[in-house]
């Protein structure tokens, strides 16, 4: 295909009333804080298409203009090395936001300006939010904002996002910039490289490449820098001849320079940045700067012994805050929903089946959903606090060495440990990971972390069969869970994510006092996302389980089936359990155990209560019945199966909302398979030993 045959011009014009504005910046520059202040909490959280990287979007109205703000992932540059950089660049190129706001950490201009240079080279309309200006002053930095503004020919607004300083000026700047022409910016890369750029530009000018979303100079620069994405784009359009010519130009240039072209271009950019900072930033001496304070704290917080002790203690406090503090509120909600509202619905003058549908189906689903809210809210408050202080970066540093051994980054330690409390918040907390590969792998192994809901099952069976060594047996179950998680991570790291590394830059931001408003806003955003995305699935699933319990092959059994073992034994749930009973023949579990495991899919807590209903005994007498139906070995294999088999409905719904239905089904099937194999191994090996 020749250049002129290219079609598919862009359809993304400026016809819409909606003004799209992207917010970019390095990680830890206060981007999210600024986004929250700009949107005033009117935002929603989702994922970028095809990946699990969090996407935040918000809408505001400025002087009658409706503006959509998109918070892009934290990046250091626009060269697509990481997934975050790919996403951010793709958005700017394909979605063409009318304005890009770059949030810059004023205390570290040198590093942040690299992204500015790359954005300016794209000729996007750029506004800089010079954030943390107060900290820069404390550091003794005097930035000549007007000088820098004139030099770069863009608007620079000083801000302190956490205190909402400069936010109004920023919104005014958005409107001001709407009708201004894009800035012209050019770095002189030296005569040899400039000549090569011009030669490539001349070739590109003959091609119709407007739909790439950038000017020909930018494309030429990136082709010189071996940008694989751009090369791929050209290949897809059949422009191999262009690429061949570029390769010739590069070879010629390489011979003349004798050094890597990419390295030389990066050096030129940094030389330019250095000239800017030397001219416009003055440093005066201060008694105690933020950097020295951060260094001093790091001497203790990243210390191999003290640092580890503080890390474990912090995790303990986070657990206490999320589970203990929330528990009275959870109890209150439970009493309110399962007691008062349930009773109220039952007394309504409605047909029995309708009131049961509302009380035992819909309300139970809503109840499961609402009961998680206090836990989740406190957990997210804690995590957001640690994130905003800068401590989470140190946690990553401390655990990175160990987690790398199983192919994960140190950041996953927090979601994994939270999984021991409850898998739902653990999966949601993977949102702080950022890296798509880390998130998928972590979500795959979280269900193997034995959550607190599984404990009553272990307690019941160990009390009956292992009274002497109860704690030891329970510990062995936890150990099996962790070992299975490690093996799974190693296995999938080799199979599914072969050759992929998380390859992230460990950023050590300065320690800061977080803004309370920002912490609450972040936590609320995450809760809202859970309610919207997982809520409906939980309610629907609960209604399906309810229907399968009161209907059977004979037809409608009556709502009494929910509490009557004889009727329940004729339900679809029981029929299905009886159908698959032969599969569990090696374990000697009858259909009642299988049914209780099916109910365990609703919530692991109900396994014990379902067993008591199905065996038609009070929970207190259940141990006597179980001691005749199980042997210590079959009981242990059941505990292992309960530990590893399918995650509960709320976890499955959360997984579905985070990684999609296909991946969730895969996880459920994989875990069922592992649970079956492990339970069988326990029986076989145990049978040989005992």
């Amino acid at each position, binding site marked *: 295909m020749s250049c002129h045959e290219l079609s598919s011009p862009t359809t993304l014009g400026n016809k819409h009333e909606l003004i799209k504005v992207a917010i970019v910046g390095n990680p830890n520059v206060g981007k999210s804080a600024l986004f929250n202040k700009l949107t005033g909490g009117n935002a929603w959280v989702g994922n970028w298409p095809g990946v699990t990287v969090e996407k935040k979007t918000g809408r505001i109205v400025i002087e009658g203009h409706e503006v959509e703000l998109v918070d892009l992932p934290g990046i250091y540059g626009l060269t697509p090395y990481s997934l975050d950089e790919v996403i951010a660049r793709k958005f700017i190129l394909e979605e063409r936001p009318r304005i890009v706001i770059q949030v810059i950490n004023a205390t570290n201009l040198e590093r942040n300006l690299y992204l500015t240079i790359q954005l300016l080279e794209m000729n996007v309309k750029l506004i800089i939010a010079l954030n943390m200006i107060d900290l820069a002053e404390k550091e003794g930095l005097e930035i000549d904002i007007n000088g820098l503004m004139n030099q770069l020919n863009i608007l620079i607004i000083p801000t302190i996002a956490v205190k909402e300083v400069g936010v109004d000026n920023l919104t005014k700047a958005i409107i001001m910039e709407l009708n201004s022409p894009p800035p012209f910016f050019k770095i002189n890369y030296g005569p040899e490289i400039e000549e090569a750029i011009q030669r490539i530009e001349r070739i590109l000018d003959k091609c119709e490449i407007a739909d790439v979303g950038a000017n020909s100079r930018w494309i030429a620069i990136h082709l010189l820098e071996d940008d694989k994405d751009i090369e791929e784009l050209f290949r897809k359009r059949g422009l191999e001849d262009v690429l061949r010519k570029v390769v010739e130009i590069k070879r010629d240039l390489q011979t003349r320079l004798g050094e890597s072209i990419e390295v030389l271009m990066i050096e030129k950019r940094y030389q330019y940045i250095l000239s800017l900072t030397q001219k416009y930033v003055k440093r005066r001496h201060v008694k*105690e700067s933020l950097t020295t*304070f951060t260094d*001093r*704290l790091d*001497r*203790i*917080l990243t210390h191999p012994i*003290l640092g580890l*002790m*503080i890390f*474990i*203690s912090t995790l*303990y*406090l986070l*657990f*206490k*805050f999320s589970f*203990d*503090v929330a528990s*009275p*509120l959870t*109890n*209150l909600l439970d*009493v*309110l929903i399962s007691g008062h509202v349930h009773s109220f619905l039952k007394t309504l003058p409605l047909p029995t089946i309708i009131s049961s549908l509302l009380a035992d189906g819909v309300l139970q689903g809503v109840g499961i959903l609402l009961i998680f809210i206090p836990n989740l809210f406190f957990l997210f408050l804690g995590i957001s606090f640690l994130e905003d202080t800068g401590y989470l970066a140190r946690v990553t540093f401390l655990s990175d060495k160990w987690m790398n051994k199983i192919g994960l980054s140190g950041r996953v330690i927090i979601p994994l440990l939270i999984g021991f409390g409850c898998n739902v918040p653990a999966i949601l907390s993977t949102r702080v990971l950022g890296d798509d590969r880390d998130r998928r792998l972590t979500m795959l192994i979280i269900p193997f972390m034995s959550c607190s809901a599984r404990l009553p099952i272990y307690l019941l069976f160990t009390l009956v069969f292992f009274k002497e060594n109860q704690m030891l047996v329970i510990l062995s179950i936890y150990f099996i869970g962790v070992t299975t998680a490690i093996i799974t991570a190693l296995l999938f790291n080799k199979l599914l994510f072969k050759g992929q590394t998380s390859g992230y830059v460990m950023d050590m931001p300065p320690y800061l*006092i977080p803004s309370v408003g920002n912490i609450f806003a972040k936590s609320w955003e995450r809760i809202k996302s859970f309610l919207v995305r997982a809520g409906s699935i939980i309610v629907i699933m609960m209604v399906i389980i309810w229907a399968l319990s009161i209907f059977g092959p004979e037809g409608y059994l009556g709502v009494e089936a929910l509490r009557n073992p004889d009727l329940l034994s004729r339900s679809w749930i029981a029929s299905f359990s009886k159908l698959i009973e032969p599969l569990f023949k090696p374990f000697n579990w009858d259909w009642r155990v299988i049914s209780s495991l099916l109910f365990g899919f609703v919530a692991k807590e109900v396994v014990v209560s379902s067993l008591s209903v199905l065996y038609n005994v009070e929970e207190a007498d259940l141990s006597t019945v179980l001691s005749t139906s199980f042997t210590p070995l079959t009981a242990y294999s059941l505990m292992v199966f309960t530990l590893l088999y399918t995650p509960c409905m709320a976890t499955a719904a959360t997984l579905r909302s985070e990684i999609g239905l296909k991946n969730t089904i895969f996880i459920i099937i994989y875990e069922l398979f592992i649970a079956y194999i492990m339970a069988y191994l326990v029986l076989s090996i145990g049978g040989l030993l005992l």
Partner: protein
Amino acid sequence: MKMINYYILSMGLTYIISSLMFILENVNIVKTGLSQVTPTDAGMALYFVTVGTLYNYAYFKSSEEVFGTSLLLASIMSIAFMFVQTLHYSLQLLDLIVSDSNIEVLFNLMRIEIVLGILSIPILLKERGNHI
């Protein structure tokens, strides 16, 4: 200066002794019966050891630069735990409305971690002025 140093030392020692009492009780060596002044679980005992170590570290390194940083961290951790426990016990009062929980839960608000957290406030205020 001496008074402040003794204050820091006594705080550190209280944390360490309290966690030691927990260990001794749990390996059935001593039965003190002083549940109000000992940690309630192993995680809390470790927390106490960490805060105690940081206070003692600050005391023994008082001539060095690390002194202030260690003290700042110790007081922050102490107050954070006080905050979490106070919130926990205060919210537990909600259970009184819906269940037959005993009014004695109020005594939890006088537990050692809350008292030590309150005693750490002056240290944090002093160190905050020096650092932040």
